[in-house]
């Protein structure tokens, strides 16, 4: 495939994914994930220059397909208070970089995100930015998300909970 075409496909996949999350179509979002997805958000820390600032030990998310399904199912019950009424969110995805891998059916796709979250009548909003390091796998003529590492840009998360996805 021509590089330009590949980049275009990956960008469209990521925009489509953001659209599903922003419009709370979470079951449809799950369909974009592979059965063996690994979804991680490690802690970021303030460290001296040269020291690793991503924790290899603990994180905010450490998910597989089953736990993501459980989270989505929970939000759909009558008692998913944290997101009922739901937040208004807007995910801005940019700086997409695509790289081939040894497997012809897989590509690495890194991107930046800026997530805006607003709740209730508040005029304040939570802004969460970061980078996602994704592995996409070609399946059924389209792309699926096989792995995601989310590097969030806050050591202290500035949002009340992570009842939202990245």
């Amino acid at each position: 495939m021509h590089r330009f075409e590949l980049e275009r496909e990956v960008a469209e996949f990521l925009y489509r994914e953001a659209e599903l999350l922003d419009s709370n179509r979470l079951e449809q979002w799950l369909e974009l994930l592979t059965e063996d997805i690994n979804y991680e958000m490690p802690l970021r820390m303030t460290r001296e220059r040269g020291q690793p600032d991503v924790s290899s030990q603990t994180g905010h998310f450490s998910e597989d397909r089953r736990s993501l399904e459980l989270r989505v199912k929970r939000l759909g019950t009558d008692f998913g208070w944290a997101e009922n009424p739901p937040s208004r969110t807007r995910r801005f995805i940019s700086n997409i970089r695509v790289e081939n891998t040894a497997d012809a059916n897989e590509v690495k796709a890194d991107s930046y995100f800026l997530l805006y979250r607003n709740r209730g009548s508040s005029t304040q909003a939570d802004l969460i930015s970061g980078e996602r390091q994704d592995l996409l796998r070609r399946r059924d003529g389209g792309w699926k998300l096989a792995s995601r590492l989310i590097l969030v840009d806050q050591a202290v998360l500035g949002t009340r909970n992570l009842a939202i996805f990245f």
Partner: protein
Amino acid sequence: MVKAEAPFPNREKLPVNDRRAQLISRLRQDVHPAEGQIPAYIFSSPEVYELEMERIFPCCWLLVAHESEIPEPGDYVTRSLGPYPVIVVRGEDGKIRILLNVCRHRGMRVCRADSGNTADFLCSYHGFNYKNTGELIGVPFEKDSYGAFDKSQHGLLAMKVDSYHGLIFGAAPGLEESLDQFLGGMKWYLDLYVKRAEMTVTGPPQRWAVQSNWKLPSENFASDAYHVPNTHACMPSLGLFPNISYAKFGYHIHAGNGHGIGIGTGVADSPTIWPETLLQQFEKNLSPEQFSILKTVKNAHATVFPNLSFLISSMTYEGQPIYHTTMRLWQPVGYDTIEVASWVLVEKDIPEESKKKTQRAYIHTFGSSGMLEQDDTENWINVTENSRRVLQLPGVTFNYQMGLGRKPMDSFPGPGEVYECKFHEANARAFYQRWLDLLLGDGGDASI
């Protein structure tokens, strides 16, 4: 700055102490923990918060770290001890110290990372340099600038430090009460979390900011099993808990000094949550009475006054019974905001695989993204906001009367006032009584 017209103009003219006296007399008049009446304004008044920072946090032993976070000489973490910025550091002599993270020259923060390992702390402002024991060892251009400078009198100020089975507590230098006295009867219950085995943290704490007054989560972990069937009503439908009335079985215990614990035992004769190998270890480390209780535990939530909470939680997860232990600080950063720091505690000797499994069970259910805790923060934020909006309606009080008049058990192996059935608010009443005693300066043990 344009000053808004004060609603009570005379009040603005009073010297600070008189305003303070007025606030204290208002608290004395309005707050009645023993009767289960708590005015809404204590959750959102900046003046009350100021008084708490003066009279609560400097008068309590506060958790700053777990020993397993700083195992080697030179290891440090930066934390808050109440309002004070501190470095918790294992010196080159192996001793753990809590040093005020404030340069003795101009007050700059001498350590600006969350954690690391260092032999010394070099201030970025003028270059005062301190050993990891706190001793001042370097003053740039010392002779040219000062002639002679008495370095021995200018080490980083040290806070009091003591530990309890891996938990490092600190206190303001003037506090006379020992950690042992401060914890009192709570030690018996803390042992279920930290003495049952040698415990270690799985890594640095999750940290996130929540627009909640600090007392709401503290009180919740001390006292509130009643919210579980409703706030967490989604759990049975996801197959994680057996049913929604599960939360009421067990004991509600005020351990003294405002420390509270709720021990959930589940329905009678339900199987233990602990693997056989761990039970053997627990039996060795605990008294027979403590062991008899821990064996039956399905969950246990607790708060060490004022803002340190613990939880043992168990559930059926991916078809398997799984438990985890978490410890968290509800660190106030303003009258309406806390920074939560939440650790996972695991038995040091269990296999790596089990530690990972425990950690994942925690992440999925508690902490910043946890399916249960998500709903808790929503509640605390809304209560805080509502209490701010009714601040000028002094008549709005919250009800803490559940269980008033019920008789405590007389046959429970542990100390404190113990009630059968976890749907009770005696612990919240005791928490606010202790809070009130400290604010009013009356001292004494809180007993409800």
